[in-house]
């Protein structure tokens, strides 16, 4: 098992004219021994390219990748001691499940009894015992996925690489396989690097998550750190479902306090419903963070679970309450999502499922600003 150290890793796809497309932009990342690292981001963010460079399937334009202390830039994929699970599984259609599992060992000239033992061990672990004679064509999606994982396990590689392995499964299968892979990680204690575009997968599976965008790393942290302390607007908006609400505005100093005042959008000023921009006094800690940006534009970020129905909130500070209009109410069962509007900004609140709400009803909501964040709208960075 091994540590993976990535330094100034860059991938440039050449173009006929111009400097080429930078898919990965001088990133640094260390994946610790036995760590489950998730690379997450929207499509085109460079996460798969990064994984493929670690696998050796993609040439490295600049920078280094070291696995277990050895720089592997010039090492062939087969000699990097990695295994990879592909999005489309890439099972060999002309081989039985047994041969699919055994192929990597055969190519490495393992003795037959050892191959057999390892294949049967992996098959038992993944519940594939009864399917060893079948061809991939005769398997369900979930079974194929398990064979793909099994093909990686038998090799006992230093590093496991997963390239969106769950995206071809139906929703139910995806959840159960997700937990299976997590269990597998706990059991094998192997270093795993997992690429996904699904932030739920990232949050539930990763020891740490690396959020990427446009070839850059936006933040690397443990799931809850990422959720509670996003470093920038992108991470704040990407992690969490429904996503964090953002309000554009400015900070104003009144006699004793600092207030966030939502910007009026000129275009919306004449809206028939009448806009009712927020004006919220900041709590001490947030005020301290925003103190350097008085009278400057900022973005206030607050998660849907920190916006409450004022009627049912005990001890709601009336100053941090605002009247807003309900646009849509989505009962999810365990909770209800209210899509609200201040007249300027649309935002979401998670509220108790037992209360009933009408569309276009005006309600008072309370903003729990102890859990809010302030961002610089130009750099996108959180104010600390």
């Amino acid at each position, binding site marked *: 098992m091994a540590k993976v150290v990535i330094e100034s890793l860059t991938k440039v796809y050449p173009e006929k004219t111009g400097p080429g497309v930078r898919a990965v932009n001088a990133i640094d990342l260390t994946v610790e021994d036995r760590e489950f690292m998730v690379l997450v981001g929207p499509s085109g963010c460079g996460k798969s390219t990064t994984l493929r460079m670690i*696998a050796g399937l993609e040439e490295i334009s600049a920078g280094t990748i070291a696995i277990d202390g050895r720089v592997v830039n010039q090492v062939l994929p*087969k000699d990097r001691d990695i295994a*990879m699970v592909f999005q489309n599984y890439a099972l060999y259609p*002309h081989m039985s499940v047994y041969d699919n599992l055994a192929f990597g060992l055969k*190519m490495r000239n393992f003795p037959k009894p050892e191959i057999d033992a390892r294949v049967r061990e992996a098959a038992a672990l993944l519940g594939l015992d009864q399917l060893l004679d079948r061809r991939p064509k005769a398997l369900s999606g979930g079974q194929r996925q398990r064979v793909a994982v099994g*093909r990686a396990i038998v090799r006992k590689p230093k590093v496991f690489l997963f390239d969106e392995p769950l995206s071809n499964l139906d929703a139910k299968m995806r959840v159960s396989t997700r937990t299976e892979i997590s269990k597998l990680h706990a059991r094998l204690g192997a270093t795993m690097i997992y690429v996904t575009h699904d932030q739920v997968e990232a949050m539930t599976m990763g020891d740490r998550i690396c959020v990427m965008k446009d070839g850059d790393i936006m933040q690397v942290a443990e799931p809850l750190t990422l959720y509670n302390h996003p470093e920038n607007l992108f991470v704040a908006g990407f992690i969490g479902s429904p996503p964090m609400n953002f309000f554009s505005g400015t900070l104003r100093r009144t006699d004793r306090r600092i207030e966030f005042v939502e910007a009026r959008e000129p275009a919306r000023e004449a809206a028939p419903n009448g806009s009712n921009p927020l004006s919220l006094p900041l709590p001490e800690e947030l005020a301290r963070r925003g103190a350097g940006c008085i009278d400057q534009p900022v973005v206030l970020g607050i998660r849907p679970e920190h916006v409450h129905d004022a009627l049912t909130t005990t001890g709601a500070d009336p100053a941090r309450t605002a009247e807003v209009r309900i646009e849509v109410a989505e009962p999810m069962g365990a909770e209800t999502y209210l899509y609200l509007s201040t007249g300027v900004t649309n935002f979401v609140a998670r509220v108790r499922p037992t209360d009933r709400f009408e569309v276009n009803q005006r309600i008072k909501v309370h903003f729990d600003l102890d859990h809010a964040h302030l961002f610089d709208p130009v750099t996108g960075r959180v104010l600390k």
Partner: protein
Amino acid sequence: MIAVLAGYAAWVVFPMLWVAYSSLKADAAIFRDAFALPLAGDLHPENYTRAWHEARFGDYFFNSVLVTATSVALIVALGAMAAYALARFYHPAGRAVFWLFLAGLMIPAQLAVIPLFFELRSLGLLNSRAGLILVYTANGLPFAIFVLAGFFRSLPRTLYEAAVIDGCGEFAAFWRVLLPLAKPGLVTVAIFQFIGVWKEYFFAFMLVSGDLEGRARTLPLGLANLSITAQYRSDYGMLFAGIVLVTIPILLVYLLLQRQIVKGIATGALKG
């Protein structure tokens, strides 16, 4: 509709049956009533032995089998490797090479027969099986590459990547993973080339008809020879026996591989 099809089938099949049963008749019987079935007491299977020995069909048959088998094997082996390389790897010259092969498919090789003749003569390969094999292989490669490149392109790239991670080098990935998956294409190519080479007359006539010891002549040449001499010797029974001998292998291939042939035609049409 059925009547039309049945009529058409009879129209096509009857001449073949006619040749087949006439091959068992004596010449006199053929002239007496050309379409009558052979009489049970008057069968002449010796037409076949005479064709085999007198008309040297035994030698020609051996030549044909050797030339066809070697050519088809070479076409499939070289074609698969070339097609794989052209489909899998990007190289600036790759496109040019591919178009060159395609040009070979579009230009009738007969146009090149005179330079080809001199080329083989200077190589000392005229009137030899090796020369014929060389020409048939070169002639068959464009089609093979055209079909197989389409096959290889249709295979997902991740299969190659999985093989490479599983420990394959370039050749092992080709040989153990991608080539087996191109099997339908290989079979298609092999069948079409078998039929094409087995009945090939033009090149054989140009390049090996000078061979008089029967060491290079193939069956189509022998048959043509027989049909010319049979006219003057009026030995139609032997001629028909010769035709049957030439036809049997192709008929067998059709019967055994009918499904692949039809599938191959359809695939070829789509993969282009």
